[in-house]
């Protein structure tokens, strides 16, 4: 109320930069052109004739205030617990940011002569070796820009392997088995590699249904399986060896989605479980910043048998010399220009160096402990859908609360008022009103306890004043947005006639 009259609050109502733009403002200065300027260098018909209409004109001060102001509307890891299940929102070290910006890395052109970029090749090579040790899989490509691309790469390795092994008849093997709980990128990536997807059911304990798996294999045509371990409900697939054996027996290969490796690093290695190929998310397990959506880095790792098919160029070593090797005839080809998101590799290697073997294991233990602690403290109040112990995530359904007419989304939004980022909600689909909580190792006990207390308070609020929860959040600059309307008449860009009026705290 008090602030109701305030319609101009600059930090709360910063408009779009286009709305700030004023003819004649400048935010840059270039050196004077130091060559004679040639008039009409290019034929008129090749030139722009719209004078970059609509592109903003602002000063440097406008830019700094604009982005500083809107940044304050974001929640971030540095503000507190960000327990998005499956996303592994752990601390993004400043040291890693610093080293990624060293001139010799940031200023290096990817097509510079090998002799003059040995340090970058060395870094990639060393990271490859460490990731191979961590996963127990010797073949590595750091080219994929993110997990989904790592998946596509991995699935294509399987495809290439099968095509070579089975020749013509490989075309009868186009079924990729994927659990119903899988992340959406799994089936999407399988499809991009020309596979059709069959879904494996999960059991009541949240594990892969082995009988169903055998059924599906018996139906034949199985190229492989894509599963996540710990799976997307945070439970370790204890039948992992049998799963792999079953698939191998059926003539298929095993792809593991490594998004949840934060539960395993230093404790167990996919390579030792029978997994043939995996992707990692350096932007999860290895703490490269998620950056509000990216960039990531999704290395693909595989067994010796699959190595010949890895993307090229591969970074290899010959004595003391590192070099790019493009002649691998069986390669599936390039998945990205140049060598992938190199900057993320620098950060990830710095993360590994900082932790060392012992620190990596310690992080895994701390991450799993935090999740188990949350699960233990909340299971009396929130419905825990599965009996078995979770690993790095705690999962709940809204069963107990939905009876009272309050659902997961409401609980998530109310958590915002308590100063926490909500967990991942409604994923995986196999759990009704899922709340998937991944604290990671980067949260201390006091913050965990505060989160637990918040969850308990909210459950109490649901009894006392359900609307308080249903209408949450109350502490944000803006309320729940009408996403349905947004999708019906999408406005995806600013235009001079875009309605800015409605941006005041009043209207």
């Amino acid at each position: 109320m008090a602030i109701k009259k305030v319609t101009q609050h600059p930090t709360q109502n910063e408009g779009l930069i286009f709305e700030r733009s004023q003819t004649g403002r400048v935010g840059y200065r270039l050196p004077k052109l130091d060559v004679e300027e040639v008039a009409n260098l290019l034929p008129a018909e090749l030139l722009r004739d719209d004078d970059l209409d609509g592109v903003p004109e602002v000063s440097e001060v406008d830019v700094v205030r604009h982005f500083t102001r809107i940044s304050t509307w974001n929640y971030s890891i540095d503000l507190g617990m960000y327990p998005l299940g499956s996303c592994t929102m752990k601390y993004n070290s400043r040291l890693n940011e610093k080293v990624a910006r060293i001139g010799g890395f940031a200023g290096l052109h990817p097509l510079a002569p090998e002799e003059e970029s040995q340090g970058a090749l060395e870094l990639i090579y060393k990271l490859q070796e460490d990731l191979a040790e961590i996963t127990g899989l010797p073949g590595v490509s750091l080219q994929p820009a993110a997990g989904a691309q790592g998946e596509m790469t991995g699935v294509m390795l399987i495809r290439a392997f099968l095509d070579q092994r089975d020749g013509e008849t490989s075309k009868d093997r186009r079924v990729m088995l994927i659990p119903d709980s899988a992340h959406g990128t799994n089936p999407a990536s399988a499809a991009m590699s020309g596979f059709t997807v069959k879904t494996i059911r999960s059991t009541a304990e949240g594990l892969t249904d082995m009988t169903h798996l055998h059924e599906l294999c018996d139906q034949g045509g199985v190229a492989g399986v894509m599963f996540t371990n710990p799976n997307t409900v945070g439970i370790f697939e204890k039948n992992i060896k049998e799963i792999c054996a079953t698939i191998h027996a059926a003539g298929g290969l095993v792809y593991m989605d490594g998004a949840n490796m934060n539960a395993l690093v230093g404790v167990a290695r996919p390579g030792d479980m029978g997994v043939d190929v995996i992707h990692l998310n350096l932007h999860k397990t290895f703490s490269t910043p998620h950056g509000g959506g990216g960039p990531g880095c999704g290395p693909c790792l595989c067994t010796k048998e699959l190595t010949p098919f890895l993307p090229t160029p591969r970074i290899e070593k010959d004595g003391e010399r590192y070099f790019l090797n493009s002649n691998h005839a069986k390669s599936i080809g390039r998945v990205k220009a140049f060598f992938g998101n190199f900057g993320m590799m620098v950060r990830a290697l710095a993360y590994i160096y900082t932790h060392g073997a012992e620190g990596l294991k310690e992080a895994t233990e701390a991450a799993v402990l935090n999740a188990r602690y949350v699960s233990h403290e909340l299971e009396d109040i929130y419905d825990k859908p599965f009996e078995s112990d979770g690993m790095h995530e705690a999962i709940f359904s809204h069963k107990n609360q939905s009876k009272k007419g309050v659902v997961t989304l409401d609980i998530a939004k109310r958590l915002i008022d308590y100063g926490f980022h909500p967990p991942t909600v409604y994923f995986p689909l196999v759990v009704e009103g899922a709340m998937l909580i991944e604290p990671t190792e980067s949260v201390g006990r006091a913050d965990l306890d505060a989160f637990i207390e918040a969850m308990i308070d909210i459950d109490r609020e649901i009894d006392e004043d359900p609307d308080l929860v249903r209408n949450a959040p109350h502490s944000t600059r803006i309320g729940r947005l009408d996403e349905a309307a947004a999708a019906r008449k999408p406005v995806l860009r600013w235009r001079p006639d875009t309605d800015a009026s409605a941006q005041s705290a009043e209207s």
Partner: protein
Amino acid sequence: MRYIPNSPEERAEMLASIGLANAGELFRSIPADVQLGRPLNITDPLAESEVIAAMEAMAAKNTAATKPSFLGAGVYSHFSPTVVDHLIQRSEFFTSYTPYQPEIAQGTLQYIFEFQTLVCQLTGMEVANASMYDGSTATAEAYLMAQRVTRRDKIVVADSVHPEYREVAKTYTQHGSAEIVTAAFDEKTGRLADLSALDDRTAALVVQSPNFFGCIENLERLAEAAHAVGALFVVVVTEAISFGLLKAPGACGADIVVGEGQSWGIPMGFGGPHVGIFATREKFVRNMPGRLCGVAYDKNGNRGFVLTLSTREQHIRREKATSNICTNQGLIALAATIYMETMGKKGLQEVAMQNAQKAAYAAKRIAGIDGYEIAFSAPTFNEFVVRGPLAATETLEKLRTVNGIIGGIALSKYYPGRDNEFLVCVTETSSRAQIDSLVASLN
């Protein structure tokens, strides 16, 4: 471990409070026979100063980073205003996730909306997405989208599109129904010449402008040819600075514009992370890959932004999604947005003009050296192909070892047989003195 808040003591207490005797018991659900049971064979932890020393030692071996260089070919040396890197280091930006909770992610959503708008303005298109991995994957996605839109499978792609982009597109499409035909360029002009492959089975004509040789294509003409057979016209742009000077592809009839945004203030960084751009016409929006941010209102009528039209995406559509992309290049899109807004209308025009002028100066000087000529006659922006008296690899090696100059890229790397030609790039960061010493060294 200094990144782990809970001390060993605290962790012991927490273990006890959940009834476990030690950390090992946390992993009971992992069968013993798949547990590692030994320390990883990885370095001991390094101190902060030791990590810095190790990284600086490696970086120091990248001697190319500090030499005068005329490398381009999809990655360009441009000056980035200091505010760009400073602002993206606001932890509200770089330590946040994809904005799935809009009430606490309006900062991210608003800049995505600004990025989408700026990409539309510069490309001359109607809609743009929140970013792709890079120019090469954006190109691959354009192939796939053209197939979806036209329900045709033939892709006619100019030989002068970045070779690595074409490789990536090939990988992406290898297991689908696409048939890829490469169209040759004209030996005199360096422009796309042979359009004979275009027919009524063609889903898209894909060209790059300025093309890999730096030549500016005649986009209007090519658009007509593509449209004449009912194909989409896809324009690839690797040098985003060119938008400041050259007619927008959208104004030339492009149906899809894809490309690389690295030139918008992003470090060359040995090839990544950079940012792919993807723009098209409104009517194709539901066939687009990638995230889209749109305007939404709360119940008090406050304007905000949300991710929208997600029914195209993998987390909803799974195997039927328009793409498998999830994580994109968010923070790099932010950097590009800050760059474009800081440079602004005038800055984007002036920097483009300086690139063209300096490159023209260099081309003229080099063409003046006897034995050297500019290989193609078409107008260029900030790159051009030089044809010399010797094998380009030798020439460049001599420049590097004798003169300490990285002179460019030997075309033979990508175009076997074109032995005496190399690609030279000149941006606003090359001083006249550097250009002159390149010329002197060639002489």
